[in-house]
């Protein structure tokens, strides 16, 4: 077992230090080390997107990022997107649009969508489906998720 390393990163806007083994994933460090359990593990293999967080604004599957790679980075997790005790409009759209059933895929979808809307504020259905194709949901059939993303994008227009 290699020695633990001390990592400094900005997590949800706050500068944090945490120790991790070189073999630990960012997902593990977030969940077990930093007690940020919002990101979920569905496959630990980069295939399901449930563990998606933003790393310097880009959506990444945190199970495939080593925790040590987070040194100096800016990380955003689902815990960070509701500000000032209010849900983000995107979260509100997921809720009102019934875009979750079991909800385990939801944090990942929210993070991928946030990155998508930051980049493309008014995506077409095709763009939404293309950009979210790395996030698996087994419950909803995606219909209501895609509609929630559309609603969130429309909301930003007004």
């Amino acid at each position, binding site marked *: 077992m290699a020695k633990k390393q001390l990592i400094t990163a900005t997590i949800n806007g706050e500068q944090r230090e945490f120790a991790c083994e070189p073999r630990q994933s960012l997902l593990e460090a977030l969940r077990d080390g930093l007690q940020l*359990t919002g990101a979920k593990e569905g496959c630990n293999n980069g295939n399901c997107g449930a563990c998606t967080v933003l790393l310097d604004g880009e959506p990444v599957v945190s199970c495939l990022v080593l925790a040590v790679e987070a040194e100096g980075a800016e990380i955003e*997790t689902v815990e960070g997107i509701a500000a000032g005790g209010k849900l983000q409009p995107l979260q509100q759209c997921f809720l009102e649009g*019934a875009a979750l059933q079991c*909800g385990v895929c939801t*944090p990942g979808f*929210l993070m991928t969508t946030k990155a998508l809307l930051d980049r493309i504020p008014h995506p077409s259905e095709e763009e939404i489906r293309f950009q979210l194709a790395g996030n698996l949901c087994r*419950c909803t059939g*995606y219909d209501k998720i895609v509609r929630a993303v559309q609603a969130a994008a429309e909301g930003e227009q007004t």
Partner: protein
Amino acid sequence: MSDNSPISYSDKQYKVLGTRPVRHDGADKVTGRAIYGADVQMSGMAHGKILRSPHPHARIKAIDTSIAEKINGVYAIATGQDWPDLIDKVADLGEGAVNLHDLAQNCLAVDKVLYKGHAIAAVAARDVHVAEEAIAAIRVDYEILPAVTDIVEAMQADAPILHPGLKTETLEEPSDQPTNIDRHVHFETGDIDAGFAAADVIIEREYRTATVHQGYIEPQVSTALWNEDGHLKIWTSTQGSFTARHQTAELLQLPISKVTVTPCEIGGGFGGKIAVYFEPVAAMLSRKCGRPVKMTMQRDEVFEGTGPTPASNIKVKLGATRDGKLTAGQAYLAYEAGAFPGGVIGPGAMCIFSCVELPNAIVDGYDVCVNKPKTQAYRAPGATQAAFAFESTLNELASELKLDRIEIRRINGVKEGVKRVDGPVYPRIGYLECLDAVEKSAHWNTPLEGPNRGRGIGAGYWFNIGLKSSVSASVNPDGTVHLLEGSTDIGGTRTSIAMQLAETLGIAAHDVLPKVVDTDSVGYTDVTGGSRTTFATGMAAHKVGLDLLEQLTARAAMLWECDPIEVQVDGDLYRFGDQQITFKQLAAKLPETGDPVVGRASVSPEGSTNGFGVHIVDVEVDPDTAKVTILRYTAIQDAGKAIHPSYVEGQMQGGAVQGIGWALNEEYFYGDDHKMRNASLLDYRIPTCLDVPMIDAIIVEVPNPSHPFGVRGVGETPIVPPPAAIADAIYQATGVRMTQLPMSPPRLWKAMTQR
């Protein structure tokens, strides 16, 4: 979502039912705060891992854990030798019974492994990485045995035998030949020979379907703490906290009162989280090391070590007169049970002819052991395979007779009073109304144009299991009501159950505060499965509402010094003469006028009720690659009464997309070595959002006569029609009739080019 949905066949007006409130647990779920099984953290917690068999069939000669035990950070190791003695005992888990001896063997093998991935030993250690190192250091001495993973081969007389003592359960005398066939079910009605003799056209076809997995996104996870006082506590991802408690207590031979199961938020189940895998093993480890032990599966363990739904081999023979009336039907179904007996052949055999009236019919079903994981329920267990075979044959019969596909279903379709081949007589059901909705739908009425395109149709049926549900409720002085329930909430049922209590009391949906509690805190409740939760636990919520109403009426009468009979209740208003009081005002007076108002209710609805659905699908088939693209999809279903239409639509959409995956891509690939080749979410391809279009959902409401609000469960029916509907669409597009699932590009391409 469709503009004209729900299509209601009732004139009852409701205040709360049929509205779409935000779910009560929603904020926790979109902020990442909801506590799922993997989010449980405990002081001093150890992490467990399982050693799994690399062989599909082998005898375990010896297990040497001595090296693993010495690794720094390893706290405990358990093997099958740690099980208490379990006599052959069968426990009813709601959606299927289970033999406890087999269940224990499935959690940790004792003398034999029966599939690759079969659990052999468990380690608890400081962290997962140490546990993995320890697993790798355990030495197992195997005697490798020949294996069989194909159902047809497994039924041959010379097949490798999984359980030398297995005898076929049948009406006939059991034979002394060793066999893998566990059970033979048989239904018969009328005179089959006369029926076929009366037919002008007879079609007989054989079908195969592959092993597929529920594919819930959250892997199995459990934490157990065997306390110093001898009480076992479990936090787990389960569809049934009480069935998890029951299985665990039985496997460990503990009194049920010594076990408390707290159901965590559950990340999907679809039938796959009813049987226990980790709960008793984590408990054994915890007892040995005195710490809480958390165990989580990796995705390959989920595929190889939990229960998918069976591959099948089905033969269907249908006879009909020129005008399309069915005269006889015969079906043979062989379903894989997997490594241990007890698969889903029963419901498969009950469902195969459930959409049509058949005067003369025979159904034979066989449950067959193979060297694959023990199969489990998967959404309408057994029905999708059967519907693929039956509906495909029916569609072929329609084209043979030059009849419209809706017409042939109308002529033979089931309605109230029709007797199913396996016995029950249908009460009021909504199958024909679903066909009406198809014909009126925008989808059916829009011509499909373009080359290589086709439109398909398929129907499906599933029961609503009744079973047992309990709730309790208490009225708070602020006018809200706490509702405690034992049904784990997978898809938003807290809300659909709370809404039924709110409707009964005439208050707002959000004034009922539902909570899923542990097994110590509410009465016995069966699994969330069998399309029973909104239906049956909803009945309990209605019943507790009536109890509260009675108490509240009495309290109002006390205020007004009148007889409770004289108090009129209208919504949330209580009236006596010209005096009136609202629910909220009355609630505020409760603390000073008497005892707290608390109610409880238990129900066990007799028998089961019935859900029907019909799906329409448009596909385009690439002539060069045989890739099938779903262009448009409409799911139509009788929900009886849609409590929360968005979540009913969600069930229909989700089930349809699972069915699309089953139809087109999903399958366990086995090599000649009987090992699974695609145990990852990359290679076992479940649909992504790019693979499917919007799924239109049209809800039909033909009230269920055995529910106070007319509710029918909706969770399972929507996975039944898709494979048959898609096969039909592929036929319309290409002229090729596929008889094997999945209809993946290689398989379809072969069929298209070898015509």
